[in-house]
């Protein structure tokens, strides 16, 4: 039997160029990137590319019996229950979804990184308290808690984003914790500590750059979770308030008309599915590219 000596596997993050190369070569990721770009573009340029005003109720937007109209040349994706153009509503809805996605995610990443890094670096009782706290957060029925908070606090875009962040930061914190736990034992950190570099500087200059790739990956995957979560809250009627257009909200309003106007569920549903899928595909490829050890082959 031949024994090949291999160097101990080093967890080395790939360079941005190799990462980009890998993303480019993965068809699913390219598809994901295109969709992500389209959704972001749509959200930013909504006033210019949307065919109509999102709040405008067309007098010819409902059938004579007062039903919403199916897709046509005038209203490409049909109209909603109030005779508003569905395509326009969906384009503006991308703003809500993405804004909440980014806000909630940024908050979750920040809180998660702070807690996780502190626990992983200081160890001892700090890490014990951290582990028990995260255990507890993970035992919460997340959606029920989020619904209760959102319902009682009168949902606004900010509240919804913060409620989602409160539920999601735990996972990030756990990941950052284990990463910092291993990184902070490496020689360069010990060297910095021995040289008397202040702790905040060790964090910022020496530890943080090692966390960036992970943050990038989980930040991307997190948008997908958040978009879904926001849609669920809106679907249950505790998301952002109407008349603000949101994908989940449109489905919630149209639910009882579903059998007569299935497009009112299909199109916003497709928007949620595509956005969530796209961020998942990009995030997954990034993870494979950045951390070869975690590669799912």
């Amino acid at each position, binding site marked *: 039997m031949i024994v090949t000596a291999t160097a101990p596997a080093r967890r080395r993050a790939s360079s941005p160029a190799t990462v980009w190369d890998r993303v480019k070569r993965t068809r699913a990721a390219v598809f994901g990137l295109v969709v992500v770009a389209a959704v972001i573009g749509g959200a930013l340029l909504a006033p210019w590319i949307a065919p109509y005003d999102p709040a405008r109720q067309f007098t010819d937007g409902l059938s004579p019996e007062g039903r919403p109209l199916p897709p046509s040349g005038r209203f490409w994706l049909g109209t909603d229950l109030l005779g508003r153009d569905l395509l326009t509503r969906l384009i503006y809805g991308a703003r809500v979804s993405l804004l909440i996605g980014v806000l909630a995610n940024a908050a979750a990443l920040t809180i998660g990184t702070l807690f996780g890094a502190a626990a992983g670096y200081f160890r001892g009782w700090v890490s014990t308290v951290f582990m028990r706290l995260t255990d507890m957060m993970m035992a*919460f029925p997340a959606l*029920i808690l989020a619904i209760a908070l959102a319902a*009682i606090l009168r949902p606004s875009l900010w509240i919804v984003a913060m409620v989602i962040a409160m539920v999601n930061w735990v996972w990030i914190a756990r990941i950052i914790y284990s990463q910092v736990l291993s990184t902070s034992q490496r020689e360069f950190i010990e060297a910095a500590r021995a040289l008397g570099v202040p702790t905040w500087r060790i964090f910022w200059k020496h530890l943080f750059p090692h966390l960036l790739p992970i943050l990038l990956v989980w930040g991307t995957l997190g948008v997908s979770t958040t978009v879904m979560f926001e849609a669920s809250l809106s*679907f249950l009627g505790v998301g952002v308030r109407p008349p603000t257009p949101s994908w989940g909200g449109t489905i919630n309003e149209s639910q009882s008309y579903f059998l007569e106007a299935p497009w009112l569920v299909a199109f916003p549903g497709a928007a949620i599915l595509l956005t969530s899928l796209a961020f998942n595909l990009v995030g997954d490829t990034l993870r494979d590219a950045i951390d070869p050890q975690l590669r*799912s082959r």
Partner: protein
Amino acid sequence: MGVYAIRRLAQSVVILLGVTVITFALLYALPADPARMIAGRSATADTVARIRSELGLDQPLPVQYARYLARLVRGNLGRSYAQKIEVTDLLRSRLAATFWLMLGGIAFELLIGLPVGMLAALRRRSAMDQSVMVGAFLGVSAPQFVVGLFLLYWLAYRWGLFPLGGYGSPAHLILPAFALGIAGGGWYARVMRSAMLDVIHQDYVRTARAKGLGETRVILKHAMRNALLPVVSMVGLDIGTFMGGVVVVESVFSWPGIGQLAWQAIQIVDIPVIMGVVVVSALAITTGNLLADLAYPLLDPKIRYG
């Protein structure tokens, strides 16, 4: 193992206590006044005050919590504000429905995830592998309520194969269970695939082949058993999460489980019911985690807890 189990059990109790403290504080600190909700809009200030003192809501929060906890350890979750029924009775009738939905959801997760993940691993890098993996992501990314509504539209409304929501017979269970299981099925497929790829190149699998076992036997008997390990812990987690109430699916299919109960209680700020559901959910989730951890060494003799 015994010591480990006891320590984990003790931890779970502490976690549950923490959950009740936080939920209690959150619910009672929020700007909703249950006494006024019960009294109704036209009630006088006197009536509201009387109800408040009857419910003990005029006491300081720590006193209220201590009373709650004292009742909780005796298995008393209080009375619903709205329905004037014991919360435990409300929960009991709902838990059965949630239990069946949990079972059905996990069955679909396994039915979808295991074969799909195995096939993808065995035909690695083939066109099928790739489409299966994109399919798995589609399942993960599909919002449950959209899947649910479309299942209802086509299979129940158009083709009349299943009842249009509700609860009672096995036929009622299939659609909600599928809507619930589809996302997990996607995850299971991905996990199963990579676990299988890990296992299949191990020495003992090569040994099994070398001693002349048929391929089916090698895969099913030797490889799969080990590849299933990560899936077991996922099932443990899912038992907990699903028993904790699946609000969205229950709402789409009008399934009378504890998710629906929570949702109805939230809308009328029926705090004892909300608290009750959270306590039961947290108990289910913690137990699920515990089960997953304790099942591990039984399946994998390499793992021993001190």
